């Protein structure tokens, strides 16, 4: 039996990074067919066909899939489920929205945020904000799971899978998309960037958050934030790193004015090198930092930015 990987395609655009990381996990389970469902998703299907490890791309090109609304997406996936033992999603907000729905329709449990695959029915996942790591086996005939993308590398290009057009499945959904509120930025994507500069409540204001952005721009880095910084309106919600925000594991993570609450650490403690800048020498963030600098961020951050000129 083979694996069905649900590619993340929103408004016709492939989220290649998270899909390619989930693919790396999926190929450990068997031959992988990839579902590419969206509207105007021909280019996305071609991109997927070019990933190494893809056996076949199933392309469902229909307006009802454009925004990945859970109801029609789940109806389509369930209609394909017969042929697959594993149904795999990247653990993005979209994947996490759809996967449990598919699982419930198939009367199986969902296995969330898989960080390691030990076998066809044995998986490793974090619990308690990553303070414990659980290994589970499942007796369910079908395994529906989301993959923690930060735990897997990107699958490489170089494949040449066939693309098969498939029909949409009729679904009368009570939910309708209205609009997106997305702040466009030229900075790298948070979950795929190799360097991240994150600001916390210590930054103090939306205005001063520009200090974080200026340093990030000098480093070619993505900008992250703690929940407190997002709640206070210093940064948009999509920059929140943590247990209930984004999970990141860059080469370099610089935490500025962040205390290091359990929930924040949950999202970044697998980073290769962690730097913390905080004026409180007892801040818990220093316990995970490779390099800690006890300093006022309003001195240290501009100095770092200047040093990179």
């Amino acid at each position: 039996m083979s694996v069905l990987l649900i590619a993340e395609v929103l408004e016709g655009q492939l989220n290649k990074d998270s899909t390619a990381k989930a693919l790396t996990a999926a190929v450990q389970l068997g031959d992988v067919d990839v579902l590419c469902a969206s509207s105007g998703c021909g280019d996305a299907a071609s991109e997927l066909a070019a990933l190494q490890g893809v056996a076949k791309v199933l392309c469902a090109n229909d307006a009802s899939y454009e925004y990945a609304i859970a109801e029609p997406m789940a109806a389509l996936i369930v209609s394909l489920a017969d042929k697959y033992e594993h149904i795999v999603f990247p653990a993005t907000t979209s994947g996490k929205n759809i996967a449990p729905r598919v699982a419930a329709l198939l009367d199986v449990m969902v296995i969330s945020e898989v960080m390691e695959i030990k076998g066809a029915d044995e998986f490793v996942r974090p619990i308690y904000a990553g303070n414990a790591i659980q290994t589970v086996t499942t007796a369910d005939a079908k395994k529906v799971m989301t993959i923690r993308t930060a735990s897997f590398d990107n699958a490489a290009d170089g494949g040449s899978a066939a693309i098969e057009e498939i029909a949409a499945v009729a679904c009368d959904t009570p939910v309708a998309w209205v609009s997106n509120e997305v702040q466009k930025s030229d900075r790298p994507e948070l979950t795929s960037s190799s360097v991240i500069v994150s600001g916390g409540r210590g930054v103090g204001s939306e205005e001063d958050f520009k200090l974080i952005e200026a340093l990030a721009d000098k480093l070619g880095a993505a900008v992250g934030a703690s929940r407190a910084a997002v709640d206070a309106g210093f940064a948009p919600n999509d920059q929140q790193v943590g247990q209930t925000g984004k999970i990141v594991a860059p080469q370099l993570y610089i935490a500025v004015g962040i205390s290091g609450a359990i929930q924040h650490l949950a999202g970044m403690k697998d980073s290769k090198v962690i730097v913390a800048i905080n004026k409180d020498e007892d801040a818990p963030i220093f316990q995970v930092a490779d390099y800690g600098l006890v300093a006022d961020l309003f001195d240290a951050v501009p100095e770092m930015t200047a040093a990179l000129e």
Partner: protein
Amino acid sequence: MKILVPVKRVIDYSVKARVKSDQSGVELNNVKMSINPFDEIAVEEAIRMKEAGTASEIVVVSIGVEKSQETLRTALAMGADRAILIKAADTVDTDIEPLAVAKLLAKVTEEEAPGMVILGKQAIDNDMNATGQMLSALLGWSQVTYASKITVDGDTLNVTREVDAGLQNITAKLPAVITADLRLNEPRYVKLPNIMKAKKKPMDIKTPEDYGVDVSPRLTITSVVEPPARAAGIKVESVTELMDKLKNEAGVLS
């Protein structure tokens, strides 16, 4: 309209979970337990809808050990009207899986006939982020996850959702299953007189058998271990030293 709010008793968010030495799970005895923070947000939202005249009654339900009554009392003290405890576990170490919880909630929903169910987006113990989506699937009701703003307009909800790219606005027909995200609201503090009043509010005690639901787990936990510890780091004295270390020691800056 009646609103149903499922609330879970979990380890308090400020407590760092400790793994048991026999690798069977996390130590939950003699640990501070509280209402799951997202469920507190869900209760708050329901209360605001009642205060705004959209909702008429708020029923809270918890599935777990006897002591989950405390969690229900917290929700009642916040302003919920009535509680249902489904006693499904004898020890705190037994966690009922989202699929079983969703099946029980589907039965409660059939019985109570609310216009919406508001859950938390995620229980901070198992970190599953699944129950609301599963309940929506079982009921065939609108699925509305990660809500950060909800307005009710007749039989339609206007909802802002927190998604990876930012925010997404959708409409959803009632009845609906909603899961609450962090920025939906800021829960109120419970006042002492309300804690006293909550003690008199009705609480039904049920079992999974009453609903004919099998709660046996689908997943078997074979081990629970601590995450690998990070090697101890160092403190640097200056930005210059920091930059030097990042370039020449860690090799992450060119």
